[in-house]
């Protein structure tokens, strides 16, 4: 998750293009994070020191760690700690950007420092982001103060993100929640939940992305938003909302799921308070909706 956030930050700053970001995100599962990046991220070495070791590596047949110790830049303990962190997923994008020559070690060090400041996250929240701690990241990024039981809705959305990871794709980029009144959509699957809490949830996006989403959940080939794709999206909502209701049921709150409904080419008008949370997956942009009461839908 950190890779998506850091990549998007670099894109917004104009350090990389959208195409470059997509290229490296596609590569990230195959990239091996090297000691130089890990040492900068851990604050053990500066970019200049890493470049120096790389320079020496080109002149002698020794490993990065050996040279760094000889030069007094790392000790055995720190090297051992770094070697144990080479599966750190949050650094894959940085390694890929450096490997492709898009970013230097020095730029990586500077951008990482800037991102820590500009993200608005506390040090604890920043660490949570690096560790892919979905619960903490969601709490840090998704604020829906007017929904009343904020804790419940944030937990709800954290579960949604976990289900995205579980069923659809682990490479998610979340934006902050925005209050909405009237919102156009291309394709929308929505489901209402009734009982002590009455609220609606929905997932919207353009047809190609929604079809791909449906295909991934069903593990069956779909053709655009055909009947199978619509059915798959409905099942995703049933499964996701069912998991949430089950959790509430353990806390003695019984709610009822109404059947999911699919709509296309329309407008959602919130009757009560409603928020949208934009998010990006590798194959498209989506909006997640959550709000109290039942929204009104109109065809455009």
């Amino acid at each position: 998750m950190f890779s998506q956030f850091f990549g998007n930050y670099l894109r917004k700053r104009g350090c990389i293009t959208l195409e470059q970001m997509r290229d490296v995100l596609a590569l990230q599962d195959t990239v091996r994070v090297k000691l130089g990046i890990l040492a900068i991220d851990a604050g053990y070495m500066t970019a200049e020191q890493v470049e120096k070791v790389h320079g020496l590596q080109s002149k002698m047949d020794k490993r990065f760690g050996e040279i760094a110790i000889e030069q007094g830049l790392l000790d055995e303990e720190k090297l051992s700690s770094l070697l144990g962190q080479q599966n750190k997923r949050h650094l894959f994008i940085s390694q890929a950007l450096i490997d492709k020559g898009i970013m230097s070690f020095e730029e990586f060090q500077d951008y990482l420092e800037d991102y820590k400041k500009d993200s608005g996250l506390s040090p604890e929240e920043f660490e949570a982001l690096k560790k892919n701690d979905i619960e903490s990241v969601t709490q840090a990024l998704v604020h829906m103060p007017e929904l009343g039981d904020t804790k419940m809705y944030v937990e709800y959305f954290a579960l949604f993100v976990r289900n995205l990871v579980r069923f659809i794709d682990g490479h998610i980029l979340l934006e902050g929640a925005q209050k909405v009144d009237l919102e156009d959509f291309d394709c929308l699957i929505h489901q209402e939940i009734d009982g002590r809490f009455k609220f609606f949830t929905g997932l919207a996006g353009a047809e190609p992305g929604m079809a791909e989403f449906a295909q991934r959940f069903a593990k069956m080939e779909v053709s655009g938003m055909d009947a199978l794709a619509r059915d798959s999206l409905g099942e995703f909502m049933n499964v996701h909302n069912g998991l949430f209701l089950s959790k509430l049921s353990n806390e003695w709150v019984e709610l009822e799921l109404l059947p999911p409904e699919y709509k296309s080419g329309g407008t959602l008008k919130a009757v009560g308070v409603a928020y949208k949370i934009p998010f990006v997956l590798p194959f498209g942009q989506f909006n997640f909706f959550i709000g109290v009461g039942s929204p009104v839908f109109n065809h455009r």
Partner: protein
Amino acid sequence: MARILIVDDSIVSRTNLKTILLDADHQVVGEGVDGQDGLEKFMALRPDIVTMDITMPKLNGIDCLKAILSHEPEAKVVMISALGQGAKILEAINCGACHYITKPFEPDKVIEAMSELMSE
């Protein structure tokens, strides 16, 4: 091996369940796409076990269960539902359903439920 009828309006759900059952060497003798279709297929096929989704158009799973049991009181019907539908599952059990399975399907639990019913 059991002869099983799957009744569910979701093709995704039917396909997933069918794959699990076939992998466990059960025979899927038919598929009903709603409660009405499920009732007609039950009468025609007389399966050993029926898996019945709760929320369906035309005739919902609980009404279909009642209709099946009125024709065949010994019918073995397993209810299928999303998690979090505890009240409806309870209602179905009170109406005579033998078992229930929740989505997303866990293959081990599906197979276990079928084995229990076949050993009764």
